C-alpha cells in the first residue's frame, strides 16, 4: 500500500460545539437543582418546626442557645424593666419557651431574637418610643418571632433568607391584638413606625425592621386599616420613663 500524505478534512477528536453551550447547560442545571433542594429543605424545616413538641423545642433550644457574653456586674435596671414588660405580655401570646431580655448599648433603634429564647434589645430603641404601649408593640413583635419559632426556621434556611421567613410575621394586626389584650386598647401601636419614619424618612437602611419587613408607610396604613376593621379602639397610652 502506497503512503499518501494528506491533512485530515475533519477533526473528530475535538467537539465542534460552542464551548459556552456545555458550560451554561451544566451551570443552569446545577443551580436549578441547588435551588430546588434549598426550597424543599426549607419546606421540610417549616413542617418540622410547626409540628415540634414544646419539649423537643426546649431541648433544641438548649443545644442551639447562643453563647451570650457575660452581662454587666451590676444588673442594668433598664433590662429588668424590659423583662418585666415582656413577662406582662406573655399571657397575650402563645409562647412556650423562655424569653430572656438582654439590653445592649447601641444607637440603633432595633431588637432581635437569637436562638435560645434570648431577645436582644438595642438601647437606641428606648429613645424612639414615647409610651409603654409603643415599646410593648415592638417587644410583642419580637415575642411573635419567638412564638413563631423563626429563630429555629432561620437555623435551617441560613441567615441570608431569614428576612423571607420574617416577612411571615410582618402581620402587625395580630400584634395590635396583643396590645389590645394587654392594655384593653391599641393606642401606641404605630408609635415606633411613626418615630422611625419621622426621623429617617420612610426608610432606615440597615435596620432589621426595614430590611426584612414591609415599607414603613404601607405598614402604618395597613395597621390602621386592620385596627379599624377589627373594631379596636385607640386609648390613652401609659407614659414610659426609662429606669435609672
Amino acid at each position: 500500500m502506497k503512503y499518501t500524505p494528506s491533512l485530515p478534512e475533519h477533526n473528530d477528536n475535538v467537539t465542534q460545539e460552542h464551548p459556552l453551550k456545555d458550560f451554561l447547560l451544566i451551570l443552569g442545571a446545577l443551580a436549578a437543582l441547588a435551588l430546588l433542594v434549598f426550597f424543599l429543605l426549607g419546606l421540610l424545616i417549616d413542617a418540622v418546626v410547626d409540628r415540634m413538641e414544646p419539649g423537643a423545642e426546649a431541648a433544641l433550644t438548649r443545644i442551639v442557645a447562643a453563647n451570650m457574653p457575660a452581662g454587666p456586674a451590676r444588673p442594668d435596671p433598664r433590662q429588668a424593666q424590659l423583662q418585666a414588660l415582656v413577662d406582662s405580655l406573655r399571657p397575650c401570646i402563645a409562647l412556650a419557651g423562655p424569653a430572656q431580655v438582654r439590653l445592649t448599648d447601641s444607637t440603633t433603634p432595633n431588637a432581635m431574637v437569637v436562638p435560645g429564647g434570648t431577645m436582644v434589645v438595642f438601647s437606641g430603641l428606648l429613645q424612639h418610643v414615647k409610651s409603654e404601649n409603643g415599646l410593648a408593640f415592638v417587644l410583642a413583635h419580637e415575642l411573635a418571632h419567638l412564638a413563631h419559632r423563626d429563630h429555629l426556621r432561620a437555623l435551617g434556611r441560613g441567615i441570608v433568607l431569614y428576612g423571607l421567613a420574617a416577612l411571615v410575621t410582618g402581620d402587625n394586626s395580630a400584634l395590635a391584638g396583643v396590645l389590645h389584650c394587654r392594655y384593653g386598647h391599641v393606642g401606641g401601636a404605630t408609635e415606633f413606625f411613626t418615630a422611625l419614619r419621622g426621623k429617617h424618612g420612610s426608610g432606615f437602611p440597615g435596620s432589621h425592621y426595614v430590611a426584612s419587613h414591609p415599607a414603613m408607610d404601607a405598614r402604618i396604613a395597613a395597621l390602621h386599616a386592620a385596627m379599624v376593621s377589627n373594631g379596636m379602639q385607640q386609648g390613652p397610652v401609659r407614659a414610659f420613663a426609662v429606669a435609672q
Partner: protein
Amino acid sequence: MEQLLFLVLFWGVPIVVGYVCGRIGEKRHYRSIQAREKAWLHLPTTAGRFPVTAGQVARSELVSAGTVVSADFFKRVAASLRTVIGGPVKSHESLLDRAKREAVLRLKERCAGAHEIVNLRLETTPLFKADSSGVVAVEIFAYGTALYFADPPPA
C-alpha cells in the same frame, strides 16, 4: 447583596477573562498549527516500526520535543462543572488536541533534514499543584526515530 456581588465578580471576572483570552489564543494557535502541518506534510511521521518509504537508511537518530499547556480559567471551571455530572470533558478536548499536534510539529522542526520519522510516541505528564490538589498543566512529550535515506526519493 454585597456578598453576592463579590461572589459574582470573584468568579465572573476570571471566567470572562479566561474565556476571551482562551478563545483568541486557541484560534491563533489553530491557524499556526494548520499552516505548519501543511508545510511539513512532506515528512511522513508514523508510529510503525518500518518506514513507509522504501530505501537505504544512511543514518537514524532519536528526536524528541515537548510542549506544556495549561487550560484557561474558563476551561478549568467548565471541566470542574463536568466532573460533577460526568461525561466527556469537551472543554479540554481542543486543548489536548492542540498540545499533541504542537509536540509533533516541534518534533519535525527539530530534524528538518530528515526524510521520515518512525516509532513516534507521545507521553503525557500532568503537572500537579504542590499539594496534589489539582492539575496545573499537562506536558506532551513526543519522541521518535528520524531516518535519513542514502538516496532520498524525489519529493
